[in-house]
């Protein structure tokens, strides 16, 4: 029994904040893409070749089409608000089905962030809130155990993502000889003029060594997050890694979704520390404004 104890432990405070962040980030994503709903629909190779009506399970991911994409978007808005303020098993299930459908409409504009959020939403279906546990009364322990394993699965899925990404890199020649970062940053689509015009001026070790460090970091992310001593520094490194992806590579939503997903590894006191830091910054900014006579 004890061997599974670490699997069945979770903090409800962290889970609640994580859920709200997931739903809020998706809401923000869809609000900022309202103007391109029509463009979301490109019947991709996957759906054409396999066919959507082979079985009930495959049909589940082919619900919207060009004519009802807007309906799917509106349903998603309503479900996001419901989940944000008062989530239930049914709303979470409906949310996942619609989210998975919208994300499978146009595979060409998707990134890893969309993909991960869709998978996380599946595990979130089984994450019951304290309010739901109270309703279950004497059977609440059953739902508590299900919630705990779904939290563990989310964590495992995130670690798996980095592990597979690291392993994929390690097997590629371009990463083995350390030139992958150079080639990623030479592509104007994933770089900035300031970066790709000055790549020749960067000292060789600074251009080569990060490639190897990224592989090691991604493969060993799981063990690094397991120990409390290395956890904080790993989470800070992850934040900076995705900040680089956001600013230099221009994959904004990928970075936002990844930052949101990392919060499942946070501990209660991290949120308090972040809150304190933000409050300190706010006070400092206000005092600076007052000093300059703005307020």
């Amino acid at each position, binding site marked *: *029994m004890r061997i599974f104890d670490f*699997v069945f432990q979770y903090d409800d405070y962290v889970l609640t904040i994580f859920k709200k962040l997931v739903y809020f980030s998706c809401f923000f994503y869809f609000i900022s893409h309202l103007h391109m709903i029509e463009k979301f629909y490109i019947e991709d190779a*996957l759906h*054409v070749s*396999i066919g959507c009506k082979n079985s009930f399970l495959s049909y589940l991911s082919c619900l919207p089409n060009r004519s009802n994409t807007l309906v799917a978007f509106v349903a998603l808005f309503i479900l996001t608000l419901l989940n944000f303020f008062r989530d239930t098993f049914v709303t979470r299930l409906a949310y996942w089905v619609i989210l998975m459908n919208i994300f499978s409409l146009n595979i060409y504009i998707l990134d890893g962030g969309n993909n991960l959020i869709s998978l996380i939403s599946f595990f979130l279906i089984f994450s019951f809130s304290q309010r739901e546990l109270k309703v279950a009364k004497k059977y609440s322990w059953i739902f508590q155990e299900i919630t705990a394993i779904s939290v563990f699965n989310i964590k495992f899925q995130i670690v798996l993502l980095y592990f597979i990404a690291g392993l994929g890199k390690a097997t590629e020649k371009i990463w083995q000889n350390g030139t992958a970062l150079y080639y990623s940053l030479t592509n104007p689509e994933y770089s900035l003029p300031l970066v790709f015009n000055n790549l020749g001026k960067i000292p060789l070790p600074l251009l080569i060594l990060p490639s190897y460090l990224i592989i090691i970091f991604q493969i060993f992310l799981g063990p690094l997050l397991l120990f409390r001593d290395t956890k904080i520094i790993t989470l800070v490194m992850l934040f900076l890694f995705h900040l680089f992806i956001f*600013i230099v590579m221009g994959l*904004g939503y990928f970075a936002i979704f990844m930052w949101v997903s990392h919060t499942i590894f946070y501990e209660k006191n991290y949120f308090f520390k972040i809150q304190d830091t933000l409050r300190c910054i706010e006070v400092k900014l206000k005092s600076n404004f007052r000093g300059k006579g703005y307020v």
Partner: protein
Amino acid sequence: MRTILIYHKSRYILRITLVLLSFSYFFIMAIYLLPANPLKSYVGNRILNHFDHIFYQKWDFFSNPGNVHISLIIRCDNQTDWIDTSAAILSEHQKKRLPPIGKNLYNERSYALIANSMLSLRQQEKNQSYFKLESKYSEIVSSFSKSECTKRGLTFDSGEKALLYRKLRKFSERQSSNMFNSYEVIKL
């Protein structure tokens, strides 16, 4: 005492069941994520197709960043110059990193990728699904080219479309001021 024992026993059974379910999910996921192998092809058609639809995941991003930049270029009716359909949005994306410009860029870029898939498809064996896919891709790219010309107040009845392949400069040429070292245009 008996109730406590029953509680512990049921909790134990529940935990084992949940762990086994999670283990099965991640075991199938591991097979799904592995490179092609006999086990994968055996399981393939039975289970993995569902994973493709519902639990689709692909995490090898940037494992091969590639050394070619592909653009869809079009020439509207009565025009002599080619237009790079994603050039304007790419330059906007490089100036402003805030969303959703990035996604708009990938949306515009998706048409180049679809056209590229169409070209690679033409090199494969032709069967029924080939014709279905090829006509679908062709329709998407044509309607996009038409809308790009209409946006500029032009028509696309006898216009042309092509893919521009630009090879990125090699690592050994990183001091060079040219971003690309060779060009190739393939008409669609």
